[in-house]
């Protein structure tokens, strides 16, 4: 019993201590010329959809939830955003070669089709990011058109 008490105290202290380690945020309110929306002149409906469902992890500007103030949540989110941006950064779209654009668009279509993206752990907290069947069809149709026009 005593051991459990010690562990609980250590956990509490550790929890408080890690609050003092801040993480750098992924925030930038300017839209670069290389942004997906700028380069492709995306219709506003699709633009909205992608910004709500994808941009938090796949751009240089994350709209953080309030609980990002707490560690280790902030660390966890930071890793996700970093990984997401490495995979696909909509802000950097204009810098990708046509070959890579083609690959990325293909992956976007596949992942949305299979429901892999947006991730469940993300839509759990961001209900508005969820894509209905209708939304999916619209986005996929648009991305397919874009891919064919490359």
């Amino acid at each position, binding site marked *: 019993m005593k051991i459990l*008490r010690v562990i*609980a105290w250590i956990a*509490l202290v550790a929890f408080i201590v890690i609050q003092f380690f801040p993480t750098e945020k992924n925030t930038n309110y300017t839209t670069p010329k290389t942004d997906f929306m700028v380069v492709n002149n995306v219709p506003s409906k699709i633009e909205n959809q992608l910004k709500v469902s994808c941009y938090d992890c796949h751009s240089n500007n994350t709209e953080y939830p309030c609980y*990002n103030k707490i560690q280790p949540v902030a660390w966890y989110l930071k890793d996700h955003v970093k990984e997401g941006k490495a995979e696909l950064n909509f*802000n950097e779209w204009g*810098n990708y070669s046509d070959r890579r654009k083609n690959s990325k668009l293909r992956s976007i279509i596949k992942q949305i089709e299979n429901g892999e993206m947006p991730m469940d752990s993300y839509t759990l907290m961001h209900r508005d990011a969820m894509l209905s069947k209708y939304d999916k069809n619209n986005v996929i149709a648009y991305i397919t058109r874009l891919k064919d026009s490359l």
Partner: protein
Amino acid sequence: MKILKTTLGIVAIAFITLTIVSCKDGKKEQNNADGNHSEMNHDNSDGHHDGEKKAISMSENGSGNTQDVLDDYFSLKDALVADDNAKGTELGATLAKSFGNLDISKYTDTQIADLKDIIEDAVEHAEHISESDIAHQREHFKILSKDVTDMVAITGTEITLYEQFCPMYDGGSSWLSMDKEVRNPYYGSQMLKCGKVQREIN
């Protein structure tokens, strides 16, 4: 027991309090956010730098030749033919490395630009193959095959290659092989011999 409960209770309350406090702060900060543009611009070019670093290390280590890439590509293809996910994982990583080591300095400027695009894309797909289940590995293998084919179109090859084609997989997909005989990497044992030789490359 009672003390333990109290302690756990304190931990829980601390957590909840912090959450609430942080959410309040968040709202306040949002109100201020508009006036604070310049302060928040640090992290805008992260992805950029990564890309540059990769490109540099690529040209520095460049010592491999296209045959290394082809060898690793064929080993990977054979793993997929054999439905061997674990081996595919391993060979995906190997192929990513041999692509990264490819020496392209002897080609013309336009060829180098094209090869760089190909390598960048191929490395990404090979890396994905190194961390996916077999269905995903096959999806990435399809685009990877196009990258390798385009590479060979520029670099040429010492050995004869056969471009083979399976009309069933994902609206029709091709791949390269050293053997004329068809062994399908997209279906493996499920449809081992589905496909035909489309073109001979030498």
